[in-house]
């Protein structure tokens, strides 16, 4: 099946079909305009056009986004329907899970949600005007968060990056060029078209461009990634893509990197006190493992379980593995379901464990996913490729074992019980962890909090200071 995706430059929809991408090996093909023909018009020119965004009061930005959210309604928005259809085929997630995503996109735009996001990540008053700050020296400073010219390199495993990108671009009053990924070239365009239908001349509409080009296309990227054209590159995920982008980082271009990450869980001894507790904990963990079929960076992959490593401990871990597998299968279909197919690579790793290994017990292994229980303290060697509801339980006795497994690629760690989380959280952070949650809540991200150990939304702004000094109060030259 073939789709057409327009190139959108600041409210202008370019419907040319110059190029076709994808389609190999059963993939979905789409046509789009050749960005190279439109390179001159892609960067914001002149940059002072950002001014039109800065004269809009924040409350009106909220109005705009709230309106937009109401129009991002899967039942009535044909752009979104098309995006849902295409993404259902490319994402590897079940239709039910994708429907859940696309049905709830609009809720991200609700006034209260956006206000909380802006307030917690930046502070609305810094967005809306100059904020006075008196310094000890007598200097009176005024500080404001200004918008920038940014390219957002989006990830496409789920539609959230596209949806959040629009919100962040609007609240920071920036001009964004979205470079869409091949696994979701359409969601951002669907939102942009909804914006054009709603308010074609509104500055927020006129400061969003959506383009697809093949990541690494030097002709496009060399022309675009220049300090006279953009201030920042905001990049989500993808090791190869990230490494590639770093080539263009130079004085004048800032990289806001939301690196590819992996997440894990630590379950303390209390969870294994009795069968009922084990069952309840397994049900919570199942959400961290199975929600969105483990496609997110925050999904639990390796789970450290403090069952002990003697034969009784291993038996407990195996029992817990069984309970967890059952709990994953019992997740509701809008949250999780059997994969359309397990990746052949992972299927082969599982097959090898089943027939070769004395050190692992495997529950499941088909499209429904699998729980691998290590029979010693070692995670599987392919831990980084666990996905599609395949998790690895690793029994341990000494809490240092899971703590020392944390590294600079770790994002979220779900911990049970909360008291344990408080005990070990600093140590986890020193080893590399960036977000800690109660078990069962790893994927319920507080969107209004910091992200991956950085504050990306703050960093999407330019922080400008205006310093006023009165010579009567602040001497012009200090006497040493």
């Amino acid at each position, binding site marked *: 099946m073939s789709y057409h995706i327009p190139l959108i430059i600041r409210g202008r929809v370019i419907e040319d079909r110059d190029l076709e991408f994808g389609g190999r090996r059963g993939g979905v093909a789409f046509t789009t305009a050749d960005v190279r023909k439109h390179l001159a018009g892609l960067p914001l020119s002149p940059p002072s056009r950002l001014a039109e965004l800065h004269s809009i009061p924040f409350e009106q930005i909220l109005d705009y986004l709230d309106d937009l959210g109401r129009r991002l309604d899967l039942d009535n928005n044909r752009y979104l329907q098309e995006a849902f259809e295409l993404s259902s085929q490319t994402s590897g997630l079940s239709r039910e899970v994708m429907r859940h995503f696309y049905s709830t996109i609009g809720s991200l735009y609700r006034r209260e949600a956006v206000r909380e996001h802006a307030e917690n990540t930046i502070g609305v008053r810094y967005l809306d005007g100059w904020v006075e700050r008196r310094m000890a020296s007598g200097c009176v400073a005024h500080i404001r968060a200004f918008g920038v010219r940014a390219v957002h390199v989006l990830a496409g495993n789920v539609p959230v990056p596209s949806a959040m990108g629009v919100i962040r671009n609007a609240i920071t009053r920036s001009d964004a060029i979205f470079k869409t990924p091949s696994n979701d070239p359409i969601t951002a365009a669907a939102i942009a078209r909804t914006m054009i239908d709603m308010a074609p001349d509104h500055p927020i509409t006129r400061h969003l461009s959506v383009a697809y080009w093949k990541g690494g296309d030097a002709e496009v990227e060399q022309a675009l990634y220049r300090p006279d054209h953009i201030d920042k590159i905001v990049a989500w995920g993808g090791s190869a893509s990230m490494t590639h982008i770093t080539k263009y980082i130079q004085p004048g271009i800032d990289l806001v990197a939301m690196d590819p990450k992996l997440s894990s869980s630590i379950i303390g001894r209390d969870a294994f006190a009795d069968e009922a507790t084990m069952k309840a904990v397994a049900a919570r963990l199942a959400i961290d493992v199975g929600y969105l079929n483990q496609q997110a960076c925050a999904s639990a992959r390796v789970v450290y379980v403090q069952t002990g490593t003697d034969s009784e401990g291993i038996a407990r871990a195996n029992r817990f593995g069984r309970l967890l597998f059952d709990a994953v299968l019992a997740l509701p279909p809008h949250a999780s379901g059997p994969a359309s197919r397990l990746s052949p690579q992972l299927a082969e790793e599982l097959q090898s464990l089943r027939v070769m290994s004395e050190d692992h017990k495997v529950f499941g292994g088909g499209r429904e996913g699998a729980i691998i229980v290590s029979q010693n303290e070692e995670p599987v060697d392919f831990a980084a490729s666990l996905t599609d509801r395949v998790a690895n339980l690793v029994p341990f006795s000494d809490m240092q074992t899971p703590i020392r497994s*944390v590294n600079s690629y770790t994002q979220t760690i779900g911990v049970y019980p909360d008291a344990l989380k408080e005990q070990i959280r600093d140590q986890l952070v020193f080893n590399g962890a960036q977000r800690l949650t109660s078990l069962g809540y790893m994927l319920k991200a507080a969107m209004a909090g910091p992200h991956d150990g950085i504050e990306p939304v703050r960093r999407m702004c330019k922080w400008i200071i205006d310093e006023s000094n009165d010579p009567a109060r602040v001497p012009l030259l200090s006497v040493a």
Partner: protein
Amino acid sequence: MQTVRNLADPEPAAALSRHPERLVDLSTTEKFSFSPADLHDLQLGALKMRFETLADEVPVLGRFAQDQGLKEIRSLEDGALLLLPHTIYKSYPLAAVENGDFDRMTRWLATLTAIDVSGVDASACVSIDDWIDLLDDRTSLRLRHSSGTTGKLSFIPGSVRETHTAAMGFKRFFQGFGDEPDASVTGVGELPIIGFGHRRGAMAFARMLDSVQHHLYRDDRSMIVTTHPGRLSADMLSLGGRLQSAEARGELGKLKLSPELLARREEFMKERAEQPAQLQEFFRLIATRFKGRRVILNGVVPPVVDTAIAAAAQGLRNVFATDSLMFLAGGAKGRKLPEDYPAIVERFTGVRYPRTGFGMSEAASGITRMCPAGRYHILPNIIPYVIHPQSGAVLPRTGVQTGRFGFIDIAAELRWGGFLSGDEITLNQSESSACTCGRLGAFIEGEIRRYSETEGGDDKITCAGAPAVHDNALQFLSSV
């Protein structure tokens, strides 16, 4: 041209199906003259015999068959259920190598081979090289390992018996078919061999030279000269791979370097320091002792091209006699080569760029030289399968099929010869469109491509990826 099998000393098909390893002794004309019906019967008989014999002797085969729900072989199609994925050969726990637990490695290896290793005491081994040497010394195993470019070495349990099949495969490689000019080629077993790579070690290249030296050159070491006379250490390759994976495992994965490995650091450094001098010595030898002589050149494409470029810089041209033989295993193996690399090789050697070979280190004897019509014909000891890359289903063994290449090498006697590669091929098995070269049987047409990591695993056993990993490891060792 339809060639009818006509053997001077015809070995009945029934006898060949009981001893399919003898297929490698046939001449090239004989190999490609089986009628489809004869070949089918021979292969099916051999497949049944191998399965019945090895299912009890090679534990992984019995378990794999059970996992697939296969009790007996009724047709060649059944064999498609017994293609071991590459993950099987690296399913050992990396921790065993890191902790120097080579008894654990031996127990793992025991599941892959019919050779009894229960009497091997590897407790004194401190390195992989030690372990391989011990197995060489005490058993009839001749382990081969991969380059480990994806972080983990694969180990293929070759055997002394396979050294004969490998040597015969080498010999037959040069032999043409029917009335082709090189059908009566001479020189193998007499001409000196010029090899491009490390002479010693347990990668396929060095093992092949060992086999050829023993079986075809009466153990005369002086007949083989290589660019690197030293050993390509499995420990160095493994370390290179472990460096990548260790980072991903946090403090726990922190490389455990045995004192013994550190002690060998000097040796490795010296090896590397000597490499330029070794190459000079190689150039001196070929420019004097071998200048203008008829020789056999042997290597995979990238190191041959690298050497040719280095030789050109020194003004070495047309070094060998024009009627020299060249055994060149094809493919750039992920390397970017200069566009005119065949011409570069021709200028250096003075020999016409040959038709290259396609083979798999996982086969006992599987390398086949491109025919004059540009196709790779499948040797009679190889039962080819084309597997659907996503579903894993076997595609019909008729007509032209594109998919993932799998095969069973019925010449493998002491291990299971079934293997599922990561290569995408188009296999022509159509009886009506036989190749114009006259060879009967299935052939690969068009390009051979690698499936990406996500689509099916990428650790192909290749020698060409090795030097880069090796260098990283040395760099690391010199920094600790």
